[in-house]
């Protein structure tokens, strides 16, 4: 056995060899032990040469095989995978349901539960297809076919549609082939003539298989003027204030003639709140005495609908003693606010109602002076002055 001192020397010499010193140099330092050290250090020197370097090819091949094998062994994250699958499944289901609802709603008629969805889908279409004449025309056509369908099925629902006035008889008009019954309660705005484009609001009556019109607004006559107020309303003012309709279209308050208000009387202004469907267009009715706020208070209904006019139903509040009515009724936003938006993520919520701010009735509309008759005031003035001298009516 090697003694301890030789062992130490040997280890030191091995360190020296490892550091790069030559055998001769090292042995020269230990002359006494050189003989014993020599075979040991020779062996040690050989040991340093024993290991070899791997080739680059071998290293690369080994790496590739190693990682390939690791990829096979890699466990699939079961939890997250399952979660992703579930989420994808729910998403697909929602899309299907939403899509299905939209599809099913296509044939919905006013009064049907899905009708609101149908209208919402249309709004979305309009939003994404602004200024699309064809789309607007198609939607108007759809309103008319809805009315026809309702008449055929003897359903009584509040409706609104636009069309071309084709025939005028004392009590019965024909608007794009749809029979429209007129009576003394019907409010007509504008100068209707054959060929005019009109907007009809009313209700389908099964007994007469026609639409009982409460309001007819002439959009175009021979010349299409945009926001003139010369097409004014005579004295007979049947006012129906329309408010946002409920989705079911069940008119809780029908625009019955009882809502009639004779402006000349200027007394009770009863605005009947009729839930109606959102009008296709926003039509500005000349306001009797409304303030400047009125026309301006009606923002566009939707960003896409190009309103021919903005409707402000005349607010007639009699005297100051009169009960404040909800006179000004702006075109209500689509009934969607009252209807839960379709559950499909693909159907965007209906146009935001915040864009349509129904003007607060009272503040913006000043009670007209007791003398308010059918004034033709299209400039902004408050009620303050008596416009008796301004008394042109046109009918």
């Amino acid at each position: 056995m090697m003694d301890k001192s030789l062992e130490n020397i040997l280890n030191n010499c091995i360190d020296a060899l490892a550091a790069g010193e030559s055998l001769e140099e090292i042995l020269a330092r230990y002359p006494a032990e050189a003989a014993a050290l020599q075979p040991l250090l020779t062996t040690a020197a050989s040991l340093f040469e024993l290991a070899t370097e791997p080739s680059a090819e071998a290293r690369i091949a080994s790496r590739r095989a190693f990682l390939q094998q690791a990829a096979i062994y890699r466990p699939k994250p079961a939890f997250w995978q399952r979660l992703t699958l579930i989420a994808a499944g729910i998403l697909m289901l929602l899309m299907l349901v939403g899509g299905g609802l939209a599809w099913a709603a296509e044939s919905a008629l006013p009064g049907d539960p899905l009708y609101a969805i149908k209208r919402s889908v249309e709004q979305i279409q309009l939003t994404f297809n602004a200024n699309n004449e064809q789309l607007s025309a198609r939607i108007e056509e759809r309103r008319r076919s809805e009315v026809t369908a309702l008449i055929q099925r003897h359903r009584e629902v509040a409706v609104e549609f636009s069309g071309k006035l084709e025939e005028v008889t004392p009590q019965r008009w024909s608007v794009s082939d749809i029979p429209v019954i007129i009576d003394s309660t019907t409010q007509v705005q504008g100068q209707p003539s054959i060929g005019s484009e009109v907007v009809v609001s009313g209700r389908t009556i099964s007994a007469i298989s026609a639409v009982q019109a409460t309001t007819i607004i002439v959009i175009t006559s021979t010349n299409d003027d945009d926001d003139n107020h010369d097409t004014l309303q005579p004295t007979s003012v049947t006012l129906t204030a329309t408010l946002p309709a409920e989705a079911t279209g069940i008119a809780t308050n029908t625009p019955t003639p009882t809502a009639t208000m004779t402006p000349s009387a200027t007394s009770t202004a009863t605005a009947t709140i009729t839930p109606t469907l959102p009008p296709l267009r926003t039509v500005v009715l000349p306001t009797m005495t409304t303030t400047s706020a009125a026309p301006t208070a009606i923002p566009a209904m939707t960003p896409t609908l190009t309103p021919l006019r903005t409707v402000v139903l005349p607010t007639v509040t009699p005297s100051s003693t009169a009960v404040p009515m909800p006179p000004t009724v702006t075109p209500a936003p689509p009934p969607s606010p009252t209807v839960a938006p379709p559950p499909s993520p693909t159907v965007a919520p209906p146009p935001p109602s915040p864009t349509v701010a129904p003007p607060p009735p009272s503040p913006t509309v000043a009670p007209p002076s007791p003398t308010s008759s059918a004034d033709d005031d299209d400039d902004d003035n408050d009620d303050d002055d008596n416009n008796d001298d301004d008394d042109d009516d046109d009918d």
Partner: protein
Amino acid sequence: MLDDAELLRRAYAFDTDALAAIHDAYYQPLYRYISFRVGDRHTCEDLVSEVFTRFLNALRQRKAPHSSLRGWLFGVAANVVSDHFRQSYRSPHVPLNEQIISYTPQPSDLAEQAAMNEELRRAINNLTYDQQQVLALRFGQNLPIQEVARILGKTEGAIKQLQARAIAALARQMTPGMVE
């Protein structure tokens, strides 16, 4: 040497980058370790791959280390080598001297060197396990004593003693006239 627990944690998840880093760090040292013990190049390559395969399996079975990867890998390498020798001893194989002769013709000193190396390796196989490990790390890797001590989990003094005695035993074997 990469040894951090984070690398191993990711390796347990079979993170490709972590595993690639481990391979890149340890392939060459493991190859050198194995080639210290085994002369044939192709055999060395196979045995190194075997070390990495055992590493992957250990990861799968959650038996791989969570730290001190280097020591663990060298331990696996030692097992792989001893398994190889056990097998080659069991199975019929060409006698070693004939193996040497079957080498492609080389300059005589190289052939001589190769012959001596084979002899040396055979002699190393006769050492104790600990002595073999010390020699492989100290001379195959040229690691300093304290590194060897750390990897093998021994004191420096123990490593020094093992080294000296291993050299002495080898020298005795290599001395002409002394046969294993």
